[in-house]
């Protein structure tokens, strides 16, 4: 019979330690998820601004500023979407598709 079965206190301590390490792993997972969502959301915002620059020219400050206003409104929403929508990571997938689509669109039709 293992020692932990004969010693309930040791079993309780081992359970606490494993709960702590499980909690730590969950926190690291959340941080990684948030970092990924932030990077993708930021890229999306950047591509939005670049779309205005490429489409209207760098001299058109008004168009660029309007694009910045739209990008800033979307940035936190996209971060929350990427981070919050966790079932099958669909939030991150949506961001990835949006980013890719925007990058392609900027490349093909500036």
């Amino acid at each position: 019979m293992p020692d932990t079965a004969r010693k309930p206190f040791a079993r309780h301590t081992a359970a606490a330690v494993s709960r702590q390490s499980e909690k730590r792993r969950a926190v690291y997972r959340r941080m990684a998820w948030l970092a990924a969502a932030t990077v993708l959301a930021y890229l999306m915002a950047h591509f939005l601004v670049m779309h205005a620059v490429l489409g209207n020219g760098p001299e058109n400050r008004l168009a660029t500023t309007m694009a910045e206003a739209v990008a800033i409104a979307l940035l936190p929403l996209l971060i929350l979407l990427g981070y919050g929508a966790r079932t099958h990571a669909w939030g991150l997938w949506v961001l990835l598709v949006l980013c890719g689509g925007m990058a392609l669109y900027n490349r093909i039709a500036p």
Partner: protein
Amino acid sequence: MRETFRVHMGWLHSWVGFLAGLVLTCIFATGTLSVFDKEITQWMQPEVTLDHPPAPTPLALQRAAETTMAEQEKDLFAFITLPSLRDPVIRVLHYDGHEFIGPVLDPVDGHIFPARATAGGQFFYDFHFALRNGPVVGCTIVTLLGVCLLVAVGSGIAIHIKAMWPDLILFRPFGPRPRAWLDAHLVTGVLFLPFLIMMSYTGTVIRARGILPPHPFLPAQQTEAPPAAAASPPAKTNVSAPPASAIRPPTPPLGPLIAQAQQILQAERCELILFSPTQIRIFRSDDASLFLTRDLVTFSRTDGHVISSFIQKGAAARTLELLHGLHYARFSSDLLRWLYFLSGLACTVLMGSGLVLFLMKRRKASGQKILFRTAEGLTIGLLVGLPLAITGLFWANRLLPLSMNARMEAEIQVFFMLWAFSALHGLICALRNTAYSGWRAQLVVLAFMALGLPVVDGLTHSHGWLQDAGRYYTLDALVMLTGLAALIVFQKLRRQPS
């Protein structure tokens, strides 16, 4: 460990809210004070009398122009701000890297008031938008924190949305402490949510270029056309100083130019007059409407004829003017400005209560950890230290000798020294596990300084109390209220065990 949507959002809200909130509380507090930056400057310069009509005479304008030329001889890019209802004096200002400072002139005869050198309310404005770290580094940090705030607000809404309607104004201050603090956080958050979202969003948009530069990161994305200089009306900080050696022609009388500019811009008032070697630019007043425009008329400096006018039209321009106008809040309406002030105070309370809640929730599990104690020390230095430093700034304004060299810098040093001492004291008490005594000691000092400010103001005989005294009564009363609040909190903490 449960991995539900609310738990995830709760984690995000707590950590982003706390880490960003340590600086955001300062930004919101100083922004709230910036709503009355002109009035604070008037309190800090009691030598300037304000009982004049806001229309400047030709003599005063001529003297203002001469003073501006004299400042420009010293290689300072000086400009004129004309009198307004809020600030019925002429100011000749230049940017010193942090604030707009300069001599104050009487709008009747143009004589320069012997006003004491002080940063005034501009100090809080500079701290608010740049953390006194300049328009590049400081503004970028503030803009990033603005995005963090929007994320924290969004996650907060996600957590609380089900209870938002039934618990709209639920507040239980006499209940258990964590519940009372949570209710304070929720009530201020929900009731002032439109204001909070508006200010965070507009503030972030204003400096969005700092975090979303309009050029590609990768060489493959480069456009073929080289970037050209954008044609836009000059902002205060963007125009470089004219060289001292440039020969400057005598300035034509400003009165007729102002009248002409008002006619062309269809404005009741003009506010800014900028000078370059060949041109005079007169801008529409900021308090004309909700929309913060940079419409201007350009005159020739040699003979005063109109060169051009710039009036932005179109939906995009108006939208941006509205976003700027909502944030800068340079309205002429007193009631609206007070509503902004109260809303800003409420949002500061929202963030402060959030910081306290974060510590309360983790005290049992992590109270002995060094990171927790550091966080608590920093919170003491922020929630009590910042008001203490602000009160200290007002004390220094009244007590420092008027003829002192570098007086303005000395006032600012007093502010930062007091804040640093407070933060250090808070950290030492928290690390020694005597955080409660740290809170109590600092609250007593804050109460003493805040309640003592009107006494200092009276004893220094800087001004009269009968004529033109509204500004003194108002600021002294608000600071006294802060002192009373500190005293009440101290009494509550005294009843609790350390």
